[in-house]
């Protein structure tokens, strides 16, 4: 126990000096700069989500007088073979994907957080149950379980959401369980136990604050998974209905036209999907940095 305490101290010192080095590249208050960039990122993602939400009608409007146009001033992302505006379709698709991704990643991470915490705090029976569920979910091939759950829940939006949410929590739950096991050995948790604090107090006041960075990182790593699985299950025909302008459907459709030289149909939606995923990644990292008490003065 003593050695683990020492090594964690060393780690803390090490990470702080790494922050110190990076700080040199940033003029002014690093914390402020991070906050501003984070707010801009969140604003951009929110704008895409809201714009896409209101363009749902526009995005499916067909007009054969303007079909297969390459990118131009009026249609910056071009149009497809049915004359639909690819810019609007891309934004709507991203908005749809962000909403599904956020919902499923949040539900998944929530399940992981509480099951991982409960496994350690609530005794042996709960621990065995959680481990059993983790093994079951991780033992069955991902895609198969996803299709089964989605199909059982009647496909469509809620089918996809349930399928992704119930298949993606297992590895994060295992990670959080391991972290909680280690935290439970720390001196301050043992002191709290001797001070007569309840299991619930220890779980939510001592353990939970230390799990936030794992939780946020896990949430963000779940997000691209969720979008990509949504796209693949839709591609296979067990997910969203084909008239929905989801990014997965756009990409699947564009495959047929890519060989015919219509590069813009695949390029811009794909590019923007990557941009959104990267922005989420950046937002997650910034949040991690801001909530780490060691960085308060940077």
């Amino acid at each position, binding site marked *: 126990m003593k050695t683990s305490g020492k090594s964690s101290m060393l780690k803390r010192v090490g990470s702080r000096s790494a922050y110190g080095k990076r700080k040199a590249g940033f003029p002014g208050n690093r914390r402020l700069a991070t906050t501003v960039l984070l707010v801009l990122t969140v604003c951009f993602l929110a704008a895409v989500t809201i714009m896409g939400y209101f363009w749902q009608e526009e995005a499916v409007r067909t007009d054969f007088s303007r079909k297969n146009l390459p990118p131009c001033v009026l249609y910056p992302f071009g149009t497809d073979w049915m004359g639909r505006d690819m810019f609007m379709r891309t934004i709507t698709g991203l908005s749809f994907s962000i909403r599904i991704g956020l919902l499923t990643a949040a539900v998944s991470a929530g399940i992981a957080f509480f099951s991982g915490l409960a496994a350690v705090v609530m005794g042996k029976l709960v621990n065995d149950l959680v481990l059993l569920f983790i093994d079951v979910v991780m033992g069955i091939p991902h895609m198969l379980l996803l299709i089964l759950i989605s199909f059982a829940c009647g496909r469509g939006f809620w089918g996809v959401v349930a399928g992704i949410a119930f298949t993606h929590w297992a590895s994060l739950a295992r990670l959080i369980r391991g972290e909680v096991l280690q935290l439970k050995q720390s*001196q*301050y948790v043992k*002191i709290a136990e001797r*001070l007569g604090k309840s299991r619930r107090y220890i779980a939510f*006041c001592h353990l939970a604050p230390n799990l936030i960075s794992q939780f946020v990182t896990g949430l963000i790593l779940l997000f691209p998974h969720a979008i990509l699985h949504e796209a693949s299950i839709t591609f296979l025909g067990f997910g969203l209905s084909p008239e929905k302008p989801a990014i997965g459907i756009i990409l699947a459709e564009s495959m047929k036209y890519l060989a015919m030289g219509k590069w813009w149909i695949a390029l811009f939606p794909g590019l923007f999907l990557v941009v959104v995923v990267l922005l989420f990644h950046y937002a997650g990292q910034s949040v991690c940095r801001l909530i780490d008490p060691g960085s308060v003065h940077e």
Partner: protein
Amino acid sequence: MRLEAKGLSFCYERAGRQILKSVSLALEDGERVGLMAPSGYGKTTLCKILAGYESADCGEVLLDGKPLKEYRGYCPVQMVWQHPELSVNPRRRLKTVLSEGDFPAQNDGLQSHIEQELGILEEWKERYPSEVSGGELQRFCIARALGERTQILIADEITTMLDLVTQAQIWDFLLKETGKRGIGLIAVSHSPELLSKICHRVLKLDETNI
């Protein structure tokens, strides 16, 4: 309350080195006992067993004749550790350290009295543990351990990292406070001068006990 240890033996791993071999000691109500031994002789281990953090391989710890394990909830034997930076959650503000102590609302004079005597400033409470010095942090740990229901305080080299003036201040306060409330004290230190000054008697863990 009377704390009694009977024939405590302990080793960390199965068939590992025997750290404690049938150690017995008794602490009368309100008594102050010093504990001295070279490094590695099991002082901290003994403290952990006496405060209920570890259970001994054989032997027992009795508090007023009742095994310490049977006390549920708040443990009347509280221990202050040598390393304050490991004793507080690095992700929580320091005011939460004080709120963990046993300071009921109807007796709020106790907390402010202890804070004042230990020199805990109001502005430190909003900080994180990494933002105060080790000595400042240790004061929070001492305050936390001195809750209302504490009957016996175990101090495991709690002032080793402090300068002499601060050491004197803290021990002066602890002597006054434990004397006033009749709290028993077990103090561990490498300094025989300190122990002889603050304790009624000094015990040495030696070859026969390890």
